[in-house]
């Protein structure tokens, strides 16, 4: 029986640290070993082991029937995943970059997301779509987008965005076991990051945020790669006496509103950090939810620290300027706290 828990602390790691991509690889191996219905399909995942080496070794272990290299036919192999899922399989479809998933959105939005609903619950699409987004490394406008907001808006889809190896593994396993469909979004800058991952099997349930750092002055909400940057910003701010609580949403849908609201009611100040462009992003939605549910607790406007409103440029300096950096987050927190001071009458 896997431990069904949500915090890194509970399962002893015995000092084992592995990379995010290795954690994902373990999740796939374990689930494929456990359940013959699970299979992987995508471009370059078999012989090549995946562009980011997440699926390395799976072909050798599970064979060509269950680790399927496809032609560059994103729309169709995603649709193939949907069809296999409907008929009892548990496909893990990989699309190399979230940017390319734009080719497959009919199958995701019109088919996978709606099938269960349209069939009044008779149909199920236990499919995981793994893909990867974010800026980093001068990959330019068509290989750097943060597009989770598109999936977030579609009823019927779950959206997962882990930030640590521990969460990546536990959430991917849970996603594969979920009735789905689950959009599982990785970040290209996270694959090589390391963290503790226990030997023992465990799951991280979908829909549970984690307070990755507790604090009293301001609630900082982030997901995916922005969690790491937010945590280091929080350490810097601590040196200046600002005590930041960092919440890692981990799952965007279902959203763990309780954890968020509880923290907001405590700190009365909120910063949401998002790599995606601000307009129409997930941060806006969370802000709108908070102002509705905790209006009387807010001492200052919710501050959103987000990507610039532009496609990502090739040049590395410009690229960096388009995405929240540690310094931007620090500034956002200070701005969030400053508003309050304006409202306090001078002594």
């Amino acid at each position, binding site marked *: 029986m896997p431990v069904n828990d949500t915090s890194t602390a509970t399962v002893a790691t015995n000092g084992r640290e592995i990379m995010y991509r290795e954690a994902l690889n373990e999740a796939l191996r374990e689930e494929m070993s456990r359940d013959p219905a699970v299979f992987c399909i995508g471009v370059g995942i078999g012989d090549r082991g995946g562009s980011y080496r997440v699926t390395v070794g799976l072909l050798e272990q599970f064979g060509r029937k269950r680790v399927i290299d496809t*032609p560059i036919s994103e*729309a169709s192999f995603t649709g193939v995943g949907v*069809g296999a899922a409907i008929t009892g399989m548990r496909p893990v479809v990989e699309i190399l970059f979230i940017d390319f998933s734009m080719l497959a959105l*009919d199958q995701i939005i019109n088919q996978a997301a709606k099938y269960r609903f*349209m069939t009044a619950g008779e*149909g199920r699409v236990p499919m995981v779509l793994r893909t990867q987004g974010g800026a980093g490394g001068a990959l330019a406008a068509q290989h750097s987008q943060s597009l989770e907001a598109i999936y977030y808006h579609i009823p019927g889809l779950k959206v997962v965005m882990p930030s640590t190896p521990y969460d990546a593994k536990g959430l991917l396993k849970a996603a594969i076991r979920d009735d789905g469909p689950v959009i599982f979004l990785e970040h290209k800058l996270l694959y090589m990051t390391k963290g503790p991952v226990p030997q023992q099997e465990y799951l991280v349930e979908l829909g549970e945020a984690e307070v990755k750092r507790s604090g009293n002055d301001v609630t900082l909400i982030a997901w995916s790669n922005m969690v790491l940057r937010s945590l280091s910003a929080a350490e810097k701010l601590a040196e200046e006496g600002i005590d930041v609580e960092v919440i890692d949403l981990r799952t965007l849908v279902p959203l763990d509103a309780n954890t968020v609201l509880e923290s907001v009611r405590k700190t009365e100040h909120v910063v949401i950090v998002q790599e995606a462009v601000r307009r129409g992003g997930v941060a806006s939605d969370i802000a709108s939810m908070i102002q509705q549910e905790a209006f009387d607790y807010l001492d200052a406007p919710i501050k959103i620290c987000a990507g610039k409103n532009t496609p990502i440029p090739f040049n590395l300096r410009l690229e960096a300027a388009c995405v929240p950096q540690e310094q931007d987050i620090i500034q956002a927190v200070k701005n969030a706290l400053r508003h309050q001071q304006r409202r306090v009458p001078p002594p």
Partner: protein
Amino acid sequence: MDSKQFLSELYRQLYTIRVFETRCIKLYRQGLIRGYFHPYLGEEAIAVGVCAALEKRDYIISTHRGHGHCIAWGAELKRMVAELLGKETGYCGGRGGSMHIAQIDSGNLGANGIVGAGIPIGVGAALGSSIRGDDQVTAVFFSDGAANNGVFPEAMNLAAIWDLPVILVLENNHYAVTTPIEQVCRTRDLCERSKGYGVESFTLDGNDVLEVYERTKAAAEQCRQGKGPVLMECKTYRQMGHHVNDPGTYMPKDRLEYYLAKDPVKIGRKYLAEKGDATEEEIARVESDVETLLEEAVQFAKDSNEPDLQKFLEEVGSCQ
């Protein structure tokens, strides 16, 4: 199954689809059916021939013009009519309607409102069978218009390179809404599109239920032998416009008459009479049985409840 019984069964199906569509068009005109309704009139032999040649364990996947596929696959008329009327007792509890009817437990994976989208989904069902090692075939229905959606060649190629047991049933009724196929295709036969993918294909008379049946039988056999997909282009014609409300005035009279003369239901009736040696009386009995069943179905649907609003809202509210 002896020939007479078999031909009688085929005819029963053909006739059922015919009267189902005709009757439901009336319900539509009476305002009892809403939304889109794309009649299958004139194409009945394809659904009936294909489904008769498959096994219970197989899969089919359908289109926006899908009532015929459902019926030929064995759907209950009462749950069909109920769904068209948006009732709780319909196959999708009134959530789906004409364009989304499915009967998953039987292997009918459902209609689709997106032209062409069912093709990769069908190929995926076949991939599942292939992974499991199950001896199942998937028949994917689609029409000429869908052949212009890029997922048709894409998904056909996937089926080809993985030798998947898929029968691509191209119901070429020569129109996508009002667009004649000649306007959007340089070649005469759409099945030529499979050649560049190394996929066997052929044309056939889609109004002749026995021809459809025989060719499907052979195609299914090939699929089960692991030889990969087959594309069957069934030439046919709609007997009316694209949609209930489309008078179809753009359809040339002589073409329409040519196909009306080759009416698939009449052909099926003739087979039953001539090859099946059925008497006029026996045939009339089949017909009246069907009519009775259909009237019961209509009554059932009319008597059924609308979906419960409160329950629906609770379902929705509990979803993230």
